[in-house]
């Protein structure tokens, strides 16, 4: 990890996760990591490589192959004062843990009226574009963001990852921390040294503009920024908002932007029906109706269960930057 400027370090996304976890384990003896292959293997993306040797098997737990109890046992630990960070190896494997996430973790504080709380972090890599096919490519945020009591974040810049992962670990309520696997090594950036947090629930305007508001997150926010650069070369300035936080979602930043640009495009990797974009669209239509100069549009994945293994099928699912740029141009010209 090269030192780029005083006070920051250059890292890619996977290094940012690793670095943040490491510092958290060192700082607080109540934190521990549990999941499949997180110990000896060091996680299938090498995120926790070396952690077992440094922190020991009580803190880096290679769990049995049982997702429901990876989360469920972590819930119990959290209820009894520890700060567990549970890992689901791929988001596609999370479904058996749905009961424990939605039925238990999200409701612990509520059903006990505050007597018990559940300060739990669930980390999982998600997203496609890596030839992961049906079971290593899905986006899952739409399944969970509906649930009051849960928090969900999906940062995809290294500095955001560190700040939000720290915030998630500190948070007194259950937080799902989604990491887009394609961005792990693809995205590099400057990460401030030392401990800091970014508040959960705050989006980030990554590119300021006035002709169109683009809201995105994960892999696609990087492509959206690239597309915006292309339009900027032609004198059109598009505003790109990195949502970062799925729940709670930053209504204020979105509305402020839409009131300025009057046009909204949401770009999501997940399929369109029932995705994040639907909620944003409804909210904006409700609250900024008289500011809209164009219909709200969503550029999203197709309505199929998953992307195929064959390259042609995956490419058909994923949205290339050129299509994003074309859609942006259409909306600006509208």
């Amino acid at each position, binding site marked *: 990890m090269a030192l780029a400027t005083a006070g920051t370090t250059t890292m890619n996304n996977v290094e940012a996760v690793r670095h943040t976890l490491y510092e958290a384990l060192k700082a607080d003896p109540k934190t521990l990591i549990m999941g499949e292959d997180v110990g000896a293997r060091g996680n299938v993306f090498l995120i926790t490589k070396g952690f077992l040797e440094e922190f020991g098997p009580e803190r880096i737990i290679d769990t049995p192959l049982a997702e*429901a109890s990876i989360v469920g046992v972590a819930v119990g*630990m959290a209820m009894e004062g520890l700060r567990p960070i549970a890992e689901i190896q791929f988001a596609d494997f999370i479904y058996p843990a749905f009961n424990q996430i939605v039925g238990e973790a999200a409701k612990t504080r509520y059903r006990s009226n505050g*007597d018990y709380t559940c300060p739990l972090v669930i980390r999982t890599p998600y997203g496609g574009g890596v030839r992961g096919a049906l079971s290593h490519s899905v986006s899952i945020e739409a399944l969970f963001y509906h649930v*009051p009591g849960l928090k969900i974040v999906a940062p995809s810049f290294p500095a955001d990852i560190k700040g939000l992962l720290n915030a998630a670990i500190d948070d007194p*309520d259950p937080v799902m921390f989604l990491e887009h696997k394609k961005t792990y090594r693809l995205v590099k950036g400057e990460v401030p040294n030392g401990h800091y947090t970014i508040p959960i629930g705050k989006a980030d305007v990554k590119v300021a503009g006035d002709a169109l508001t683009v809201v995105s997150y994960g892999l696609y926010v990087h492509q959206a920024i690239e597309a915006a650069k292309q339009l900027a070369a032609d004198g059109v300035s598009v505003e790109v908002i990195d949502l970062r936080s799925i729940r709670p979602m930053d209504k204020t930043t979105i509305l402020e932007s839409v009131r300025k640009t009057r046009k909204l495009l949401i770009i999501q990797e997940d399929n369109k029906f029932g995705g994040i974009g639907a909620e944003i669209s409804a909210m904006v239509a409700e609250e900024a109706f008289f500011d809209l100069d164009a219909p709200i549009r969503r550029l999203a994945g197709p309505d199929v269960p998953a992307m195929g293994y064959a390259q042609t099928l995956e490419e058909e699912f994923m949205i290339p930057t050129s299509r994003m740029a074309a859609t942006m141009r259409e909306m600006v010209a509208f």
Partner: protein
Amino acid sequence: MAKAVESLAFERHGLSDEQLRWMLRNMHLQRTIDNRGFQLNRQGKIPFATGSEGHEGIHAGAALAFMRGKDVLVPYYRDAGLCIGVGMEPIDVLLGMFARGGERQGGRQFPSHFTHRAIGIMSFSSIIAAHCPHAAGAAYSMKYRKETGRAVLCCFGDGATSEGEWHESMNFSAVHNLPIVWLCENNEWAISTPREHQMAIKDVVQKAVGYGMRGSMCDGSDPIAVYQTVKDALDHARSGGGPTLVEAKCYRFLSHTTDDDDRTYRSREEVEKHRSLDPILRHERTLLDHGVITVQEIEALKKDVLREVNEITDRAEALPYPDPSQLYVNVYEGTHEPWR
């Protein structure tokens, strides 16, 4: 391997007269509160109640083995007597029935879904066996903090042992040698599903072998036997020996809840046949036979229990419902700004 412990002779296992009488009172208190629940429901005052008739022996015995201030209890919804036995205020049961506010319940959950962190009763939901992984996590946290002399007591019925999350919890606790006692209150019925349709084995305790875990079995209608078995398992856990699956056999005399009618799936003869397993009658006989209590003392005890139950019924009923604004609190820490 499975051990059967039965009270053939009067073996008091170190329990004093006072403790034996305490157990009897606990059992009567539970039965009377249960009856009160059904009465209130038939009166139309409360919409719903669950009864534990038949489980009193397990609750009293396990409660006495539990170490207040040290152990953690992760119960399920048929454990009112046990929760009272480990220190919960009896009025909490009535507060749950009447859905009144109250500090911890807030009128949120069904009756018999308790929580009391200060005395070690862990909050749980209605989902069968969903609490078992939490119990394993709680036990792990004790081991993690290197606390000896503490253990988790997790209770569930026979039906729960079919759930995947129960299996995963058992497995995890065995792999990590956790300080936990898995107490199955086997009353032979999961709503209308008899044991034969729930599992291919006769005794739940047989499952312990599959996990490489200790197992023991006892007669749940004998509170002293339950006390001895559960204490043995808890001591073992507290000293770092690892988990035990304890099966306490009893019988569920009532329907599952006031919304269930057991006449649709079992005969009266079958129910009556098991009356000999009534733990209260059994314990009273034991104490009477061995001069630990007299008939008059039993009558006085029952009167006192009824007085107490009447008092807490009236007190609970007089409290107000939670204010509607309470619906919105404790979703997250602090205030919650939902999108409207």
